[in-house]
């Protein structure tokens, strides 16, 4: 009777060890297959700012159509375009369009919100944000100087 009990215990032990082993394998397999990729990389934001500054806007100046870089300077000087459009307004709408199309900002997306900031020296020239500002964010900036003024363009993406 006691021996049978001992045998049953052995079989039980074997079954339990098999079950635990299989569960461990499944869990580990799942953990290993889960990708640990972060959605947005720093170099992507840097290249985004760098190339956005070269974008040709609809603001006409005496040299043709102004780029975002030219528009940042015009906006700081509160200048108007040749077609009487406000340089800051065009800058704001163009940058919003660039960010929203470039990063697919939204609740369902990996980018939940963003903040764009343009500074001249220490003073903020233009700042706009959209979506949710969470604690988890990535940020990059680009600087340039023109006519003795330092400009800093910063983009922060919240995920």
């Amino acid at each position: 009777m006691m021996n049978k009990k001992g045998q049953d215990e052995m079989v039980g032990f074997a079954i339990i060890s098999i079950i635990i082993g299989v569960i461990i394998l499944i869990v580990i397999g799942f953990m290993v297959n889960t990708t640990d990729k972060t959605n947005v990389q720093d170099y992507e934001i840097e290249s985004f700012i760098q190339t956005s500054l070269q974008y040709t806007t609809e603001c006409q100046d005496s040299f043709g159509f102004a780029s975002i870089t030219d528009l940042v300077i015009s906006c700081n000087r509160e200048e108007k375009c040749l077609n009487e459009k406000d340089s800051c307004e065009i800058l704001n709408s163009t940058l919003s369009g660039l960010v929203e199309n470039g990063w697919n900002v939204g609740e369902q997306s990996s980018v939940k919100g963003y903040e764009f900031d343009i500074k001249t020296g220490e003073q903020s020239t233009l700042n706009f944000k959209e979506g949710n500002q969470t604690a988890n964010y990535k940020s990059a900036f680009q600087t340039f100087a023109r006519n003795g003024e330092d400009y800093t363009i910063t983009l922060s993406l919240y995920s």
Partner: protein
Amino acid sequence: MYGMLKTKQKLKIKNKHGQLKIQQMIFMILAVMFLFILVALFFLSISLNKMKKEATNLAEKNSMLLVSKLANSPEFSCENAFGSNKPNCIDFDKIMALKKDIAKYSDFWGIAKIEIRKVYPNQGNVSCNTENYPNCGDLKILDKKVKVLPYSYTFVSLCRKEFSETGPYNKCELARLMVSSQDRT
């Protein structure tokens, strides 16, 4: 006589007892062996997965490096055609010409796919050809029919010459240069 029978019975019981103990031990050894096999399998699967991941990561890193190198290569870059040397600037006219002769370059970069997708203004997935240029949103420069890794990309400035009433001007738009290597795993 009675004493001998008793001793024989005692021996039989002892033998059975011993057999059961051996059986228990075999069970135990089998269970422990099975557990060891499971543990070995588990470590083997981890190391195999790690190796696979490393191979994929290496290929991805390679294409990431290549994508930024490609954007500034003479075959793609704007150089001084649109003012001073612009980083990550791609000459749209140049790559339209390159697309025609892509057969000569198919093994030049060692990658399977090169694609440029306009980001802003968004022109959808209209594939670029000589008829609809530049009003299109997607240009497949190289498209090998092989199993590929996920795309690596970088933002680029896609520039071309345009004409207005005041004369020619440079028009630069935002695009993504996407590159994908062949999956050899």
